């Protein structure tokens, strides 16, 4: 089977999301679609999957033009999509999820669960997926859930499989297993489209690489000759510094002191289990770990968003155990939250309003209850300049900015004060390469100006590049402490997967 996108252009009002894109994918090959956030990858895939209609251009299968009115048509044509966010019913079994929507039935419309089980077993066996058809989804680890998604797609007889950022939620070991599955699929004659912004993975798995920038294919690369640097340059459109350049740390006094901290998650289970660590002035401590191992709850407890049930937190000697977010803010703590859209910004507010979001209540942004918007606008203008936020004005809503620029707004707001401690969660998630570089520089600059910095990231490369000291969290506990120069991604990956530290 050969799928061709010919001259695909997609216009949203005021936005050219895809600009005359030509792509071909054949059975038995892995095409990597590389691009920054906002480059138009998802739009393109949504067109291919029938969710959007292209403004111009055609989709061809084996040389014939096809028209997709919805995902149903695309699935019928043999295109399958594994979304970044799994579309599974958590309380259903694997087999039930796989057949959902195309259930095999006995007479009278009764679900033939036996046949569903057999089908799952067959597909699972064929590709060494090792999935139990009777397992309940919510009890499976993320890696296995992803395999269920793959089975779902294969069950619907997909010939072309599209994976949208499939490795974002996996540990390094799981990524390797996942690559094994991908290769098996390819050997079996499936065509694979792999969407990602991770350069290393592209070089490892791709047969062909297409790079998307500002909606257009700006180049194809051969993985045999391409390098991370050349790909990054193609992706961003200018030379990019991939390494974080920083001097050695010079840690002095302890700023953040965490002792035996216990925190419950939303389900009232212990998510942070007796965690203790220090962060000193002038050092960056990185917390590595697969998402969902207590990092979120830890940061929320440190920043006043969640109550801890045991232990102590202090910043600069001041006890901040279960302090309110405002008390934490007033203790000179900057917080770049994990989810910028959910908590870091008010998307419908203007940039000015967002710049003063957590300091509006005091001089110089207000006197008494009167907001000083002139002063606030001045400050907004200054921060937009200093932090290179790409926006036509400070008076447009934050939702109009790209992800990278939204993140810069938060970083600008948080770093524009004198801070003793920086807590940054996923500081560059969903941010384009250019902005990542900038945000990393600012974080290092905060350290060099004497702040203590705590970074939480599920991107192991980011933790390795930024940190002066790395803590690995697994199942609510700190299971290892390493210096980046004394460890490797592989070793950290083992700890992230639950191996215990030998010292």
């Amino acid at each position, binding site marked *: 089977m050969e799928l061709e996108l010919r001259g695909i252009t997609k216009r949203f009002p*005021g936005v050219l999301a895809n600009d005359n894109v030509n792509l071909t994918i054949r059975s038995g090959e892995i095409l990597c679609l590389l691009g920054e956030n906002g480059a138009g990858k*998802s*739009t393109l895939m949504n067109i291919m999957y029938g969710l959007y209609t292209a403004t111009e251009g055609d989709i061809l299968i084996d040389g014939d033009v096809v028209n997709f009115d919805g995902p149903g048509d695309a699935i019928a044509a043999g295109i399958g999509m594994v979304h970044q966010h799994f579309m599974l019913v958590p309380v259903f079994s694997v087999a039930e999820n796989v057949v959902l929507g195309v259930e095999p039935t006995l007479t009278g419309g009764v679900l033939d669960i036996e046949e569903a089980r057999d089908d799952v077993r067959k597909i699972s066996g064929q590709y060494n997926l090792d999935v139990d058809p009777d397992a309940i989804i919510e009890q499976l680890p993320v890696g296995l859930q992803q395999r269920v998604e793959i089975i779902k797609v294969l069950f619907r007889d997909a010939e072309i499989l599209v994976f949208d950022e499939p490795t974002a939620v996996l540990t390094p070991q799981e990524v390797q297993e996942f690559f094994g599955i991908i290769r098996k699929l390819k050997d079996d004659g499936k065509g694979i489209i792999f969407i990602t912004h991770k350069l290393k993975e592209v070089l490892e798995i791709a047969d062909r690489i297409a790079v998307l920038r500002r909606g257009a294919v700006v180049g194809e690369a051969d993985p045999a000759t391409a390098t991370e640097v050349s790909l990054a340059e193609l992706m961003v459109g200018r030379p990019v510094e991939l390494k974080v350049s920083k001097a050695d740390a010079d840690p002095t006094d302890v700023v953040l002191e965490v002792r035996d901290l216990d925190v419950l998650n939303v389900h009232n289970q212990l998510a942070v289990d007796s965690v203790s660590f220090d962060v000193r002035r002038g050092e960056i401590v990185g917390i590595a770990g697969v998402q969902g191992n207590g990092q979120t709850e830890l940061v929320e407890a440190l920043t006043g968003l969640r109550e801890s049930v045991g232990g102590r937190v202090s910043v600069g000697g001041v006890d901040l155990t279960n302090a309110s977010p405002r008390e934490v803010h007033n203790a000179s703590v900057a917080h770049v939250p994990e989810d910028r859209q959910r908590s870091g910004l008010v998307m419908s507010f203007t940039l000015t*309003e967002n710049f003063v979001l957590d300091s509006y209540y005091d001089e110089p942004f207000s006197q008494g*209850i009167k*907001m000083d918007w002139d002063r606030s606008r001045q400050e907004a203008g200054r921060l937009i300049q200093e932090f290179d936020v790409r926006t036509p004005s400070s008076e447009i809503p934050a*939702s109009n900015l790209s992800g990278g620029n939204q993140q810069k707004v938060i970083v600008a707001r948080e770093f524009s004060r004198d801070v003793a401690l920086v807590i940054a969660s996923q500081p560059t998630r969903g941010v384009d390469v250019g902005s990542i570089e900038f945000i990393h520089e600012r974080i290092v600059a905060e350290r060099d100006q004497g702040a203590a910095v705590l970074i939480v990231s599920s991107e192991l490369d980011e933790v390795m590049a930024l940190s002066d000291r790395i803590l690995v969290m697994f199942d609510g506990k700190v299971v290892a402490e390493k210096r980046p120069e004394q460890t490797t991604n592989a070793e950290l990956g083992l700890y992230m997967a639950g191996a215990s530290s030998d010292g």
Partner: protein
Amino acid sequence: MADDRDVTDDVAAEQPSAETPSGGPSELFSDLTGVGRFDWRSNALVPLLAIISALIVGALIIAFGDLDTLKLWGSDPGEAFSQTWTTVKDAYVALFEGAVGGWTPISETLTRAAPLILAGLAVAVGFQAGLFNIGANGQMLIGGMFALVIGFQFSLPGIIHIPLVIAGGLLGGAIWGAIPGYLRAKTGAHEVITTIMLNFIALRLVDYLLTVNYFQLEGRNDPVSKSVAESARYPRLLSADWIPFEFTRIPRVHIGIIIAVITAWVIWWILYRSTIGFEFRAVGANPDGARYAGMNVIWLYVGVMAVAGALAGLGGADQVAGTLGRATPGFVGVIGFDAIALALLGRSHPAGVVAAGLLFGGLAAGGQQMQVAADVGIDIVQVIQALIIMFIAAPALIKAIYRVKAETEAAQLTSGWGT
């Protein structure tokens, strides 16, 4: 995993992205209330087109409601058309003249607009903070009763008495509004349910109080309250000596409309120029963001509802001390419910609420005239009001009918199936 939200990359970088705020109000809420919408064209145009559409559909209903003319269509379509045309024209001309055709109609319009505007503000402030305040009616009743007691209990110079009556209205409404706010904050009880229930409680409480000796007019068996002292009555606007007109009957418009417009300005100032309004709007647009920013979300809900209740209570005081001079059972009618429609039509903006209040006041005043002069039932006014809101609630419909350019296809598409 459930919290693992991502940033979809939909459109080219540096361009409007199609992301929906995840912790904030839904697209639907924004579309409906206008909160968080920056598009002025759409915010002004959609209500305007909704009004026009409603008037057109209203005209059709008037036409089809005229049975005699309908029969004529079979035998003499030409005559039928001209009769139908006349009926509709007469009705709308009467509606228009009854609303603005002279001092008395204008007086009626303004008199009816004042409590509508105040109650509309009560609902709009709720919307701005992400709360559905369905309880304006109850808040008006309780505020009105506070104003009533102050109005008949004391005998003071007007310059002191009237401000006290106003303060009573504000306080009574604030208390009645703060109750659902507190319940929401402390127990999570949804304000839609509690405010509706408090409406019933207030309604029957007033019925009961009006039969209690302390409130009831001496010598009456039916539930009518004592009259508010003259010194507590809102002065009439057209009774002053310097008004260069002679009236056979002085039109009843009183300072309530001025109070309402000034209040709207104050609310605008609070919402957009003060730290309190900043908090209100932040908690409405994104409660998670507000909490992250150090605002006390729990107590903000109480504060918002108290302010909203105070506004409605002021509307109740307007009825008691301005228009009626006393309290009768259910003395605010359905003003508190019309207020919801009004806030929606006004896109939850104080200026929009004033405009919508004047429109609804005019419809109510003109409807009377329409009934008398054109023999078209006043119910049609309610139909038109309801139609306006239906068109507002379905902005997609208006946009489709009039081909208003959609803001972004992307925003609508991704919100449908995204995370």
